C-alpha cells in the first residue's frame, strides 16, 4: 500500500460525500477575454472588506490620494488596509450599503477619481533575497485577503509557523456561472505560479496541489505549462461537482484527509489559498502593486454582453452591469456571488470588494424564483446531497422547533451553507435559510448565556467583595477595640483594680520567699554573713574591752538612750546618737554594704533598662514612677528602720527593737530623723544612697511588671528582669532578716 504522498504524486483523487451537479452555464463568459472597465465617477470603498477588523483611517475628507496609497492602516494583525484604487480626492466617509447579505450600511470612503491614475512611489521586492517578515508585512500592507469569498487575511495563513505538508491552490471555481479564476489562469498563469513560489518560500510545503475542475481545460493546460519547471507542483483536474471548491471538500478530494471538527486545515498540515490570492501576492511583492482591482464575472441572461471584467475595488455594481448591457426585468434579482451561495442586492450602488467574484443578473426563466415552500416528505435527497454528511431534514425539523440541543447533536455548526440541500429539495424548502436563522438564534442564545453568566459572576464577585469588606471592617473594629482596651490597661488610665493589683504584687514580691534554686546560695551567704557578724562581734568585744579600759562610760549613754527611747520622739535622736557613736563601726558597716552593693548594682542597671522601656509610654512611666516613689518612700522608711540599726545591731538590740515598733507610729518623724541621721552619718551616706536607688528602680520595675502581668506580658526579657529583681529583693530581705 503506497503512502498518501505517493498516492497524491501518482495523481489519485478521492471523493467527498454528496454534492450536486447544477448546470454550469460558464460558457456565457469563459471564452471571452477579460475586459478592463473604465474608471467610474465614484468609488465606494468600505473600510472593512475582509474577515477581521478595519484598520485605522489614515486620510480625511478633502485629501488628495494617489493610486495605491494606503487609506487605512495595518495597525493590528487582523487588519488589512484598503488602498486608493486610483488617484483622486476623498469626497466623504459615510455609511453606505455594504456588499453583505444583510446590506447593512457600513463606513465607506467615497473617492472621486481625477482620471490621472497617478501612482505613489513603488518599491518592488526580490522575494528570493528578502526575509519572510518583510514578505509577510508586504502581503499585509498590500491589503490581501482571501479572494475566494471568505476574505480571511492572507498574511495570517501565509505566516503559519506550523509545518505545512500540502499547499493547496483552490482554482476549482465550482459555482455555476463564475469564470473569474478560469480567465485569470488563462491569462496570467505565470504570475500565479510566481505567487505560489512566494507562498512556498513562506510555508515550505512538501507539495503544492492545484485543484482545477475539469470544465476549465484551457486554464488547466495553462497552469500545467506554467508549473512545468516546478517539480513538486501538481495540477489536479477534479471532476465537476458542486461544492468541490469548498475548503474541506477540496482537501478531501485531493488528500483524502478530513479537517477534524473544530480544527483548522493547518492542524493537519494543509494550507489552502485561492488562485486569485496567489496572483495578488505576486503583484504585491514583485511589482508593489497592492490589491486595487479584481476580476469579476458579470453574467446572466439580462446582459447583452456577459463577460469577465477587471474592476477597480469600489466600483458600484451598476457600472459593471451597464458596461455589459444590462436590461432590467420586472422582479429582477441581482446576485453578488454565484447562484448557490451569493446574495441578492437591494440596490446597485453596492461596490465591488475584494471578495466579489461574480455579479449575476439572471432572468426569471433562467433562475426561477423559489415557489411556495411545501411540506418535507422526508425523501432525504438533502442528506444524499450534503457534503458534510449531515441530515438536513432532521435539522429542518429541529430548526423549526428551535431545539438548539438537538441542533447541536445533529451538528448544525458543521453546515457550510453550500445550498446543495435546498437545491435538491423537492418541496423547495429554503433549508439554508432555516439553518442561518437557527445558527443566528443559537449564537444569540450563547451570547445571552455568556452575558447571564458574566452578570452572575459579577453579582457573585460583588457579594463576595461586600462580604469581605464587612469581615475586614469587623476585624478592624475588633482589633481597634482590643488595642483600645490594651491601651487603656497599659496606660492604666489607672483603674483602681490595676493599682490594687500592682500593690498586691509589690507586697508579694517583698514578702515572697526566696527562689528554691537560690536557697543554697542564700544559705551560704547567710552563713558567710553570720560568720562576718561573729567576727565583727568578736572584734567589737575586743575593742569594747579596750574602751572600757579607757572610757568607762562609753556604754552608759547608750543605756540612757535606751531608756529615753521609751518616748517615741526621742527614738530617732537615740538612733542618730547610736549611729554617731557607732562611727567606729563604720568600717565594718562599709564592708557589709559593699557586699550588699555587689548584688544590687547589676539589678540597678537592669532596673534602668526596665525604666527605659517603661518610658516608651511616658505617662505610664510617670505614673509608675510616682507609684514607685511612693513605694520607695515607704520602703525607705522600712529600709531606714532595718538598715540603720545594723550599725548598732550588735551593740544596741533593744533600741532597734524599740524604734521598729515606734517608727510606724509617726512615719514622718521617723523619715526626718532618718534624714538627720543620714546627714550626720556622712560615711554611711554613700552606702545608703546605693541602697535607696536600687529599690527605687526595682519598685518601678515591679509596678511596671504588675501592669505587664495584667496585660499578659509577651516580653520574656521583662520577665527575666522581674525574676532577677525578685531575687535581689529576696536577698536583700534575707540580709535584713539576717541582720
Amino acid at each position: 500500500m503506497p503512502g498518501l504522498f505517493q498516492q497524491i504524486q501518482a495523481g489519485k483523487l478521492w471523493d467527498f460525500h454528496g454534492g450536486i451537479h447544477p448546470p454550469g452555464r460558464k460558457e456565457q463568459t469563459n471564452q471571452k477575454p477579460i475586459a478592463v472597465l473604465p474608471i467610474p465617477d465614484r468609488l465606494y470603498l468600505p473600510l472593512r472588506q475582509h474577515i477581521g477588523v478595519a484598520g485605522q483611517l489614515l486620510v480625511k475628507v478633502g485629501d488628495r490620494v494617489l493610486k495605491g496609497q494606503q487609506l487605512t492602516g495595518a495597525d493590528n494583525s487582523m487588519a488589512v488596509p484598503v488602498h486608493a484604487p486610483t488617484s483622486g480626492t476623498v469626497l466623504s466617509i459615510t455609511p453606505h450599503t455594504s456588499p453583505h447579505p444583510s446590506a447593512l450600511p457600513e463606513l465607506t470612503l467615497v473617492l472621486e477619481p481625477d482620471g490621472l491614475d497617478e501612482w505613489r512611489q513603488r518599491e518592488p521586492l526580490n522575494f528570493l533575497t528578502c526575509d519572510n517578515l518583510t514578505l509577510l508585512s508586504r502581503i499585509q500592507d498590500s491589503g490581501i485577503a482571501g479572494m475566494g469569498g471568505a476574505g480571511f487575511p492572507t498574511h495570517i495563513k501565509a505566516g503559519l509557523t506550523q509545518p505545512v505538508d500540502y499547499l493547496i491552490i483552490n482554482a476549482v471555481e465550482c459555482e455555476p456561472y463564475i469564470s473569474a479564476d478560469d480567465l485569470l489562469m488563462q491569462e496570467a498563469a505565470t504570475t500565479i505560479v510566481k505567487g505560489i513560489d512566494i507562498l512556498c518560500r513562506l510555508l515550505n510545503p512538501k507539495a503544492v496541489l492545484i485543484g482545477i475542475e475539469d470544465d476549465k481545460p484551457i486554464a488547466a493546460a495553462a497552469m500545467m505549462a506554467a508549473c512545468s519547471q516546478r517539480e513538486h507542483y501538481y495540477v489536479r483536474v477534479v471532476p465537476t461537482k458542486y461544492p468541490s471548491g469548498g475548503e474541506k471538500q477540496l482537501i478531501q478530494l485531493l488528500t483524502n484527509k478530513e479537517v477534524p471538527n473544530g480544527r483548522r486545515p493547518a492542524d493537519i498540515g494543509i494550507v489552502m489559498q485561492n488562485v486569485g490570492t496567489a496572483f495578488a501576492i505576486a503583484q504585491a511583492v514583485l511589482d508593489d502593486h497592492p490589491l486595487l482591482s479584481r476580476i469579476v464575472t458579470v453574467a446572466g441572461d439580462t446582459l447583452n454582453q456577459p463577460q469577465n471584467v477587471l474592476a477597480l475595488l469600489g466600483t458600484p455594481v451598476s457600472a459593471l452591469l451597464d458596461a455589459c448591457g444590462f436590461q432590467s426585468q420586472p422582479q429582477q434579482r441581482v446576485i453578488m456571488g454565484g447562484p448557490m451561495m451569493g446574495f441578492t442586492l437591494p440596490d446597485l450602488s453596492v461596490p465591488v470588494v475584494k471578495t466579489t467574484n461574480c455579479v449575476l443578473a439572471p432572468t426569471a426563466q433562467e433562475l426561477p424564483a423559489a415557489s411556495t415552500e411545501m411540506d418535507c416528505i422526508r425523501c432525504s435527497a438533502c442528506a444524499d446531497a450534503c457534503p458534510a454528511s449531515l441530515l438536513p431534514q432532521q435539522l429542518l425539523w429541529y430548526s423549526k422547533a428551535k431545539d438548539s440541543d438537538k441542533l447541536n447533536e445533529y451538528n448544525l455548526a458543521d453546515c457550510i451553507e453550500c445550498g446543495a440541500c435546498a437545491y435538491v429539495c423537492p418541496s423547495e424548502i429554503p433549508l439554508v435559510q432555516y439553518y442561518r436563522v437557527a445558527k443566528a438564534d443559537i449564537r444569540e442564545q450563547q451570547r445571552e448565556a455568556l452575558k447571564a453568566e458574566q452578570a452572575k459572576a459579577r453579582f457573585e464577585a460583588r457579594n463576595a467583595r461586600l462580604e469581605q469588606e464587612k469581615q475586614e471592617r469587623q476585624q478592624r473594629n475588633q482589633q481597634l477595640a482590643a488595642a483600645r482596651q490594651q491601651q487603656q490597661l497599659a496606660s492604666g488610665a489607672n483603674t483602681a483594680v490595676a493599682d490594687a493589683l500592682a500593690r498586691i504584687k509589690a507586697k508579694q514580691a517583698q514578702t515572697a520567699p526566696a527562689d528554691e534554686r537560690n536557697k543554697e546560695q542564700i544559705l551560704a551567704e547567710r552563713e558567710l554573713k553570720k560568720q562576718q557578724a561573729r567576727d565583727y562581734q568578736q572584734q567589737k568585744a575586743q575593742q569594747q574591752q579596750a574602751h572600757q579600759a579607757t572610757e568607762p562610760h562609753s556604754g552608759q549613754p547608750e543605756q540612757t538612750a535606751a531608756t529615753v527611747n521609751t518616748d517615741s520622739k526621742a527614738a530617732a535622736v537615740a538612733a542618730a546618737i547610736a549611729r554617731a557613736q557607732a562611727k567606729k563601726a563604720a568600717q565594718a558597716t562599709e564592708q557589709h554594704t559593699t557586699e550588699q552593693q555587689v548584688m544590687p548594682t547589676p539589678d540597678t542597671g537592669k532596673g534602668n533598662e526596665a525604666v527605659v522601656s517603661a518610658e516608651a509610654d511616658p505617662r505610664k512611666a510617670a505614673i509608675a514612677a510616682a507609684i514607685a516613689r511612693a513605694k520607695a518612700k515607704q520602703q525607705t522608711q522600712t529600709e531606714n528602720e532595718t538598715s540603720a540599726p545594723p550599725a548598732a545591731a550588735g551593740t544596741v538590740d533593744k533600741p532597734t527593737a524599740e524604734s521598729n515598733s515606734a517608727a510606724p507610729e509617726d512615719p514622718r518623724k521617723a523619715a526626718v530623723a532618718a534624714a538627720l541621721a543620714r546627714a550626720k552619718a556622712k560615711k554611711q551616706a554613700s552606702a545608703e544612697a546605693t541602697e535607696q536607688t536600687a529599690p527605687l528602680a526595682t519598685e518601678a520595675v515591679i509596678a511596671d511588671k504588675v501592669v505587664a502581668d495584667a496585660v499578659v506580658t509577651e516580653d520574656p526579657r521583662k520577665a527575666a528582669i522581674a525574676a532577677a529583681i525578685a531575687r535581689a529583693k529576696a536577698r536583700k530581705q534575707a540580709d535584713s532578716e539576717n541582720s
Partner: protein
Amino acid sequence: MSFKIASSPHQHNQRSTAHIMRLVALACLPGIAVQAVLFGYGVLIQLVLAIVTAWLSEALILKLRGKPVLSRLKDNSALLTAVLLAIAIPPYAPWWIIVIGTAFAIIMVKQLYGGLGNNLFNPAMAAYVLLLVSFPLQMTQWLPPLSLQSVDLTPLDAVCSIFTHYSCSGFSLPQLQANIDGITMATPLDTLRTDLSRGLTLDESLSRPVFFAFAGTGWLWLNLAYLAGGLLLIQQKIISWRIPLAVIASLFVLSAIATLAAPDTIAGPLFHLFSGGTMLAAFFIATDPVSASTTNKGRLVYGALIGLLVFLIRNFGGYPDAYAFAVLLANMAVPLIDYYTRPRTYGHRPRSELK
C-alpha cells in the same frame, strides 16, 4: 429601483414533490396493466374509485384545516396513496371497501397526523390492515387469473360485480372464484397455506393449476411488472436502491435457509419473491419516504426488518401475505432506526469512538 431579495441558493433543480409522486404512480402502470390483463378490469374501477375518494377526502380535510387546497392536491401524494391501495386490494372487492379504505388512509392516517410528511404510518398499508381486519371475507376474495376462470368477465361485469356484488350475468364472487371444475381457488399463497395445513407437501401443492413455474399463475408476471417499474424508479433516482434490495435480500436469504432446513413445508426464495405483493411492497410501498427510514444505513435495516417480518408471518403467522403488517411494524421502528444510524458528520469521529 428595488430588486427582489431572496435567500441563497437561487438555483433549484426542477424536481418537485409532485413530480416525484407522479413518477412513482406512473411506475405502477406496468403492474396495473398486467393486473388488468391477467386478472380482469376490476382494478381499473378500483383505481378510479380510490383516486376520487382520496381527492375528495383530502380536499375536505384541507378545507377544514384552513390550508390551500389546490396546491396540495397537486402534490399528487393523495393520488399515490389511492393508487397503491387500489392495486393492493382484491380487484373485485365491493366498492365501499376501497372507499372506506381510501378515506381512512387520507383522513385518519395522513391528515390527522398533520398532513403530508407527518404521518407515522404508511397510509395505504394502514388502510389495508384496517380493511383486512374489519372485512376479512371481502379482502380475501381474489379471483383467479382470467385463464383459470370458468366465466369470462367483461369490463362491464367488473363494474357490476363491484357495485352490486354480482356480475352482469348474475354470478356472485364466490361463484366466480370457482374454476372450471367448480373448485374455489384462492391466491397461490392462500392455496399453499391451506394445502400445507391439510398435510400436503410443498410439491403436491405446487402441482395445482393455480401455480405456474416457480410462482403463481399470473402473479409471476404481476411481480415482474412491478419489479420493472421499481427498477425504473431507481434508475430515475426517485427511490434509493437500499430499501428494495434489503427487503428482497432478507426475504431471499431467510427463505433459502428455511427451505433447506424444511424443504417440504417452506417454499423456496423464488416462490416468495414472486408471489403475493413482494415486488409491489419492496419497490413502491416500503420506499414511501415519509414513513420509511431516512438514513442510508437505516434504510438497509428497515428493509431487512420488513423482509424478516414477511417471512415470519407468511410461514408461521396467521395471514397468507404480510406486507401491510410488516411495513406498519417497521414504520414504528423507524424513529429508533434513524436515531441509531445517523451518518458520521464530516470531520467528526465515528459515533462508536465517542462512547
